[in-house]
């Protein structure tokens, strides 16, 4: 099964489970959790079922393309179901079977791994799922997002599609993955990893990034003032990416680092609060019977 078939299979499987298949968000994020389809939709009483691929940028994880497992930009396959279904573990295992993994031939384990994202004031309880000792999915029941308690509780499944594909295809290097039957992952993305690692670690203009962070932060507050939480959130994400680049450039002292995390967190909490208020003004349109809640 090549890489694009794997994603297509997951799309089909989760569409059958009642998820709508969304498309990647177009602002840089460090993880699928940060996209509005997860971060914002996890909030409030409205039900939500979605699945999508999200390219994720983690500048510090870059290895100039040379490490077989690590990349500064990779993909996450993200599933959100709110409220969490009672049989979600079995449904999840079903997705592995759909990928051609014969469970009786493997060691599948749910190993405690609670998740926390300080910049998003978000936390959850769950596991990393092990396939023969390898972590293939992060499985989380959100408890809090943007400083607000989640009620009902969404469940988030985050697959590492590269890892899974490497397993399914039996290769030990991301570059050797078949993206399609015609072209390899490395042929498409190696040069990008090399250039961006170099940019992230060695080239990015830190003075500019500092300035951008300040401008984005300013714009976040302006958008909040204008009661546009969705636009405000884009600028929170931009702040977060600027911060990640500064971090990769080792331009932050420990104190500065902590202070910046706190600034992003504060903005994320304000957006979350404003977003829920706005949905409420709209009458929580996705609730089947808004009056019943």
């Amino acid at each position, binding site marked *: 099964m090549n890489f694009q078939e794997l994603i297509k299979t997951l799309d089909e499987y989760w569409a059958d489970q009642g998820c709508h298949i969304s498309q990647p968000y177009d602002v840089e994020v460090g993880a699928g959790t940060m996209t509005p389809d997860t971060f914002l939709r996890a909030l409030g009483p409205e039900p939500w079922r979605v699945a999508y691929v999200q390219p994720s940028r983690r500048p510090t994880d870059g290895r100039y393309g040379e490490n077989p497992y690590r990349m500064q930009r990779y993909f996450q396959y993200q599933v959100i179901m709110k409220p969490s279904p*009672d049989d979600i573990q079995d449904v999840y295992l079903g997705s592995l079977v759909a990928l051609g993994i014969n469970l009786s031939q493997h060691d599948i384990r749910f190993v405690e791994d609670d998740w926390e994202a300080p910049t998003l004031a978000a936390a959850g309880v769950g596991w990393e799922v092990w396939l*023969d000792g*390898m972590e293939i999915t992060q499985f989380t029941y959100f408890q809090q997002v943007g400083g607000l308690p*989640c009620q009902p509780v969404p469940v988030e499944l985050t697959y590492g599609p590269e890892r899974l594909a490497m397993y399914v295809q039996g290769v030990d290097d991301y570059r050797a993955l078949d993206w399609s039957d015609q072209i390899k992952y490395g042929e498409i993305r190696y040069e990008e990893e090399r250039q961006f690692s170099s940019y992230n670690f060695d080239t990015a203009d830190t003075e500019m990034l500092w300035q951008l962070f300040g401008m984005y932060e300013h714009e976040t507050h302006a958008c909040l003032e204008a009661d546009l939480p969705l636009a405000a959130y884009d600028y929170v994400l931009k702040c977060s990416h600027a911060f990640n680049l500064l971090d990769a450039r080792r331009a932050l002292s420990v104190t500065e680092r902590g202070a910046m995390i706190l600034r992003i967190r504060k903005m994320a909490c304000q957006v979350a609060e404003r977003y829920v208020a706005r949905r409420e003004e709209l009458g929580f349109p996705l609730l089947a019977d808004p009056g019943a809640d």
Partner: protein
Amino acid sequence: MAADLLYEIGIEEIPADMVLPALEQLEQALGQGLSRLRLEHGEITTYGTPRRLAIVVEGVDERQDDRVEEVKGPPAQAAFDGDGNATQAALGFAQSRGVEVSELEVRSTDKGEFVFAQVSQPGKAAAEVLPGLLREATEGLTFRKTMRWGDLDLRFARPIRWLVALLAGEVLDLEVAGVHAGRVTRGHRIIGSSAPEISSPDEYLSLLETNGVIADHRRRGEVIVAQAAELAAAQGHRLRINPDVLAEVNFLVECPLCIMGSFSPDYLKLPEEVVVTVLQGHQKALAVEDEAGNLVPNFIAVTNADPAAAETVREGWERVIVPRLDDARFYYEHDMRKPLRTRREELRDVTFLANLGSLYDKTQRLVEVVGWLAEHIADIPEQDAQIARQAAELAKCDQVTMMVSDGKLGEALQGIIGGYYACASGEPEEVAQAIAEQFRPQQPGDLIPVSPGGRLLSLADKIDQLVACFRLGKIPKGSADPYALRRQAAGIIEITVQSGYRFSLSGLIGRALQLLPQPEGAEGVLAVPEVAQRLKDFFGERLQAVWEQRGIDYDIGRAVLSTVWDDIADATARAELLAELRKSQPEVFNELVTAAERPARITRPAQIPEMAEVEATLFEHSTERQLADEFAAARQEIDVLLSGEAPDYGQAAEVMRGLLPTVHQYFEDVMVMVEDDVLRHNRLALLRSLDQLFLRLADFLEIVPSGE
């Protein structure tokens, strides 16, 4: 009639360390609940796996005993009129209790005559009362962390997905978290049937076993060790037993299948602790060693797989372990490129605790505290002090290495890896050893540092952590101790006692506090004198706890800590002596207590002028003179016995006990509390000196006589 009860809570995979505490709580809740419900029962046994908390109670009464309860009604005067006829009050009372008016009895009580009814309560069927108990027990379970799921409000360790509640063959009518109890359990996720039905509690274990689950965790643990040992032995090796890892993996599997994998022997060039931490820390695999105790390039993974899958699973595990070892090697080689000493400057940029400066500042404090200790503990050779000071300078340099920055590896390897890096950077071997040992002991029963330098550094590191946290108001409360301060204090006590180090605890606290920077802009900061006092009290509590683990009775601990104490080793020596005396020579112990008690009881509440000195010319009885003489001799002897670095409390106690006959005689002959102020003060002054002499060992008024 009695029937067996089975209750199984089916959950999504619960964290390994939560299972046993939950089972203990279940057992306790059911045991107490059943007696409260007046249901006799036989043995209670619990079983736990990652997906189930189960309890079996044998021979539960199927019905509560009938019970007759006496209920008090209205006063007799109100219940019956002058002719003895029942009034409305009596009729109403009888009716509400379901008895005839003729059955009401009049009896007198403290408050006059009242009407009573004998109300019979027929026992209820166990099946009727058990569901309430089971629900209460389930909802009452506490965990170190809980969660919510779906749209429920209930908090539990992980979502509850099924319940089995059977009394004999019957399903109990029970609902928890929206789940109805039934007789359907779940087998192993992969092996066995997904929904086997249990017809009666006695087939619980066997039915699960045929469905791929060893529910009895005790047996599962034995199976793991046996399988792992056999795999190792087949290669001529042996398992390196780590009880913590074994306990954890036991609750990660329902049907253990141990698998031996291998890796390139090249990785054994890494420090042994690094390899073991990679195997155990993240992957929870077991290490294997040869007969000489050296690691071999193998690991044992405890999996939950079907034996038929063994080969695939082994390959998979090797593909995971090898990159992790590779990561560690990358860190190691990268870290080694830079001499450890050169990293010290980087520590200026690492915060220690918010508002208390950098790690660099901390190392400077450690150098000073180590110096203070070397100066105040007798017989620390200058060479050891020198080593400890050098080690203190470098102690935190490994915090900025890649190895320690990697969360999971770092937690286990900090200090230890610093020792390796120090050695490789050409630092003296003794300095490297002290750095490596600075976090010992980690938990009760751990070894203390072997080297004197390591001991001094470990003491300094711990006291600095304690004063810093206390200064910021971060004091452990209840079970919340996020900075592991209890463990730090216990570590100081263990090192001090086992090394026989004598020093003033308040001196050490004072010096450490003095070195701490002024916390700027922090909330909840405590003033220095308050920190000193509360920390001293904290050490008192920790001493009690450490002593109790060493089998010293609580009252003996109190007796020692109620005296003026400021020296951990000295206080411990006194407590140990008294505990030993009570155990091996109870009569001697009791005589000592008796001798000490009477002077204490009479003088402590009494008013005695401050400067009252014993005046021999005022003695009226020969016993007074005799006691004064014996006391003077005893004090002189005890002064000698207790001076110096190794006070002989055993002999001192013997001398004190020797005073008993004369003390006895004194109280026979002498009336202490006489009218005459001068005489009374003189007598009290003598007895007070005696009390003070005994207080050099303990406050014997704290001793609880045996049998009480």
